[in-house]
């Protein structure tokens, strides 16, 4: 299948995934990948991040987002990997990859997938600090705005 969705607690090997994706997408010409990494807080205060998700709905939402991208652009292949559970600073949280005959389609669709999954896939991030403070990460207005921009196009 040309859509590959994985929701997992385990780490993934970004390089191995990108290589496998590019190989599977042969003939596509343009391959774009995006990777999101856990950023530390100021003064190295972050002990870890916890990502909660909604099993079942997560996979459905990511599949819908990927299908929408494939309808909207001429794509050979889409990959989304998203982790949940406890993640340390610098851990890779997620990745998307797109392959297309056209570079603009590969870029735009990867950007689109990110905007959609940020605000429409059921994941919630919590920051746990060394000092014991715990904060749920707030959704950003700019993320909703980015999403709205795709609807206008």
């Amino acid at each position, binding site marked *: 299948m040309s859509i590959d969705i994985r929701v997992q607690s385990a780490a993934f090997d970004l390089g191995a995934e990108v290589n496998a994706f590019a190989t599977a997408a042969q003939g596509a010409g343009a391959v774009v990948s995006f990777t*999101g990494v856990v950023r530390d807080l100021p003064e190295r205060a972050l002990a870890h991040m916890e*990502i*909660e998700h*909604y099993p*079942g*709905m997560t996979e*459905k*939402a990511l599949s819908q987002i990927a299908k929408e991208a494939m309808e909207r652009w001429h794509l050979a292949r889409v990959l989304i990997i*998203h982790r949940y559970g406890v993640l340390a600073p610098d851990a890779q*949280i*997620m990745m998307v990859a797109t392959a297309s005959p056209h570079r603009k389609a590969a870029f735009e669709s990867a950007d689109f997938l*990110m905007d959609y*999954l*940020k*605000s*429409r*896939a*059921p*994941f*919630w*991030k*919590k920051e746990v600090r060394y000092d014991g403070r715990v904060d*749920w*990460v*707030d*959704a950003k207005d700019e993320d*909703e705005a980015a999403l709205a921009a795709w609807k206008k196009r």
Partner: protein
Amino acid sequence: MVEVRYFAWLRERVGTDRETIDSSASTVGELVSDLRQQSEAHDLVFSDLSAIRAAVDQELVDMDHPIANAREIAFFPPMTGG
């Protein structure tokens, strides 16, 4: 009977990740009104609906969405994936 699920800070503040409640609500919004009667914690959690998202059978929906024969209704804050 309706199966209700909570995620993230809603789960923490309601104090459970799921509960089954007796409700004859026909929309998500009506169910919210019923839920607010359950406890003070429930009432507080649902006091600002702009901070709450809902899913019926794992599909994101608006508050006026019918719940008809839904198996599972979930409430959670805006998502923060990626």
